[in-house]
């Protein structure tokens, strides 16, 4: 049962992203700033930091699955989010061995991963010819507001899930041994 919690929450955040823009004031939407919620990614980062054991790779598999779901449901260009999210989570899994899991590290890793993922998405979309945006404009109008708004989300999510994720993780290896 505990194995199901993470995909369920990821699915929930995936759906929530679809109404995220309705929660923002209209003035922000009509302005030039492009704020993109990366809530699924942030939850994946927390999963990678607190749920994973050294030998498990659940978060990468979830990143692939839910990245693909975002592509299918929200953009129609397949593979972009899937690739970016999986790549970023792979890097986070590498970095978590260096750091301890506390709020500052989560914040740092969260910011780095949102930045990397968004830059990766920009690079892929530019290469595929879906958008044309100069790097300067991109950094000011999209990258900065996106990272700032997602920091708020990390700060909300961390106290709710950090402990829970480690708790769900406890039964993880024992469960897989018995199989």
């Amino acid at each position, binding site marked *: 049962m505990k194995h199901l919690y993470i995909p369920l929450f990821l699915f929930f955040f995936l759906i929530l992203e679809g109404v995220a823009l309705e929660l923002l004031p209209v003035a922000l939407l009509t302005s030039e700033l492009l704020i993109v919620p990366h809530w699924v990614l942030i939850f994946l980062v927390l999963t990678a930091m607190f749920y994973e054991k050294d030998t498990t790779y659940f978060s990468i598999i979830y990143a692939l699955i839910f990245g693909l779901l975002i592509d299918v449901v929200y953009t129609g260009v397949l593979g972009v989010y899937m*690739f970016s999210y999986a790549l970023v989570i792979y890097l986070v899994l590498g970095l978590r061995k260096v750091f301890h899991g506390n709020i500052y590290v989560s914040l740092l890793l969260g910011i780095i991963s949102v930045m990397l993922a968004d830059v990766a998405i920009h690079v*892929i979309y530019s290469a595929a010819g879906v958008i044309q945006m100069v790097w300067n404009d991109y950094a000011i109008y999209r990258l900065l507001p996106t990272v700032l708004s997602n920091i708020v989300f990390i700060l909300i999510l961390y106290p709710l899930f950090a402990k829970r994720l480690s708790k769900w993780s406890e039964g993880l290896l024992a469960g897989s041994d018995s199989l």
Partner: protein
Amino acid sequence: MNLFRKKRLFIFLIAFIVLVVLIGYSISGRENITTAEQFINDTVGWGQRIIHAPVNFVTDVFTNIEDIRNTYNENQLLKEKLAEYTGLIYENQELSEENEELRNLMEWMDNESIRDFNPIQATVISRSPERWVEQVTINKGLQDGVATNMAVITAEGMIGKVQTTSQFTSTVQLLTGFDQFNRISATISREDSDDIFGMIEGYDEESESLLFRIIEESDQDLEEGELVVSSGMGGVFPAGLPIGNVVEVVADQYGLTRTALIEPAADMYDINHVVVVDRALSDAEDEEEEETD
């Protein structure tokens, strides 16, 4: 260690190839999405419907408070307009009667014109969080008669067209996400001279307006604020759907044609209830396609 590195590089390369193949496949201009994607869209759409109701309720409360503050001014304005409308209604009635008589005189076999359409009511259940992809999801799909390329309108005017359809949901590409591959044949109606015809050829982010390339000029120059409507000549959308108002007219870089900047009539950010426009008059090609299906 060496073997491990090689394996890692190998996986990365395979992932990259998969990425290129997937992107190439999805932007190659396919007609509709695959069954697997339809299934995913419907499943997520089911969740979105549940989530949408409470979120909508909360946002509605805030907009209601805002609305109440503006009520008095709006009421004054509406009363003035209402007085104008009573005159228009009589005029409209007479004109439509006359129109019908003339049509009967011409002995048209079927009374369908390119203006007629069957409306399909729908609600927007989510909007793409990826701001570069201007796309919303509505709660009607193939089962309700929605098909790709149908126009989608609100009370104010056109907002876009159906991009992909699943069984129970479909995605709508907004006018703000249109490019040169999604043209709309449009017109500006003139009373005493030739109408102006042209194409809506995309959205200009800088001026936040649609580009209306004028193909056939009229004797009279375009004026600011004139209404651009769909002409129905493209064969996909019915005629007479309001698209937007002229803001400015500029010459293109060679000075051969002129382009009008159009401000969309509908608000692209506050969309809730929409109507999918199913053109009543289907052209011969469509019918043939249906038969082969």
